């Protein structure tokens, strides 16, 4: 337990200081919120409708770009070997890595969603706005971790292998964006939220084993 906490703490520091910390979500956030209106024009109704889709696409990209590098970099320099020799289970190690990075680059996007919504002039912004993005971001990071570990284990750089997980993202994006849209337009939650939560649970249950297996592929 102390060992896994040590790994968690380290990954958190790495994620934070190693560049992805806050910058990445901030960058995607900025990309979403600043660049989109530049291209679309600043008409009120238009922007707020774009927001859910853009936020979820930003999440997918953030998860892939941050996670892809951690697994691959650790594998290349042999840091993963050392972690495996610590006797801790790979399932725990991988999921801890993903969660640390989610905490640093996924969660802030979720927390910033209401701000984004305000900027994009949504009708109603409640604290509930965070919920679908919160669930969606964990799920996307976990599935993204599976894609990243496959890339790393196969030593093929590049998004080719990450393409494999795109289908896993699709339900999250669809349900998540739909629910977010509901909330932003002042409607109540729909059935999508349950499906989203189910997807999150599935990701939590399956992805650790998938990631551990993928990294042992070598």
């Amino acid at each position: 337990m102390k060992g896994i906490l040590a790994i968690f703490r380290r990954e958190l520091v790495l994620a934070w200081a190693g560049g992805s910390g806050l910058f990445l979500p901030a960058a995607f956030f900025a990309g979403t919120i600043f660049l989109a209106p530049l291209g679309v024009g600043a008409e009120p109704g238009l922007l707020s409708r774009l927001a859910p889709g853009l936020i979820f696409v930003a999440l997918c990209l953030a998860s892939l770009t941050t996670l892809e590098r951690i697994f691959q970099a650790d594998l290349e320099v042999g840091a993963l070997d050392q972690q495996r020799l610590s006797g801790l289970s790979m399932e725990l190690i991988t999921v801890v890595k993903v969660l640390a990075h989610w905490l640093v680059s996924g969660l802030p996007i979720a927390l910033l969603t209401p701000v984004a919504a305000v900027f994009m002039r949504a009708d109603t912004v409640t604290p509930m706005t965070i919920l679908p993005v919160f669930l969606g971001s964990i799920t996307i990071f976990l599935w993204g971790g599976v894609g990243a570990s496959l890339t790393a284990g196969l030593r093929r750089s590049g998004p080719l292998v990450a393409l494999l997980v795109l289908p896993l993202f699709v339900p999250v994006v669809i349900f998540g964006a739909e629910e977010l849209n509901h909330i932003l337009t002042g409607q109540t939650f729909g059935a999508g939220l349950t499906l989203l939560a189910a997807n999150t649970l599935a990701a939590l249950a399956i992805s650790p084993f998938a990631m551990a297996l993928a990294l042992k592929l070598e």
Partner: protein
Amino acid sequence: MINRDSDGQMALKLRQLTAVRGYTLLFSGLDFDLAYGEFAALKGPNGAGKTTLLRMVAGLIAAESGEIEYSIPDEAPARGIYYLGHELGLRPNETPLSHLRDWADMHHQPRERILPAIDRLGLTSRREVPAWSLSAGQKKRVALARSLVVPCPIWLLDEPASSLDVGGQCLLCELMTEHLNSNGAILAALHDPMDLEPSRVLDVGAFAP
């Protein structure tokens, strides 16, 4: 199979090991025993499978067939194996100090050992610079310091002397001698002879098909 008792003096028993990489059979039917207190040299030409064998023994890759049996004393940390590979496990943006701290924490070892280890390996002035800016020999020394911070009974070393200067090679021999004296076991892949004479030699090339 891991045997958690040190009564049996054998540190490692390899039985009928077979290794395949890509589509090539590297070696097969490899049998070897390593006792505690013993230093065995692993020999063989480039590409014979020395690194592959060491990683198999460390449990980092699976053997095609055959068995590996350890017996590791109870008080050893985690899996009890110190592996020094071609890749040293250094993350480019972290410092020697932060690496050693992580390793100590990860294996529940006290952090007090870190500073003496750094001093002993001559890294005192470099302990807070990022690993990418270290020279090749300095990187190797950081990886060697790990053996002092996380004391493991079985050492698996892959060309440990490479990129060390004369002083560093002496230090390596010292560390290895101390380890053997405290009843540790060493299996090391070597191309050049070392000052420390190995008690046994395992030639991987002899098991090639």
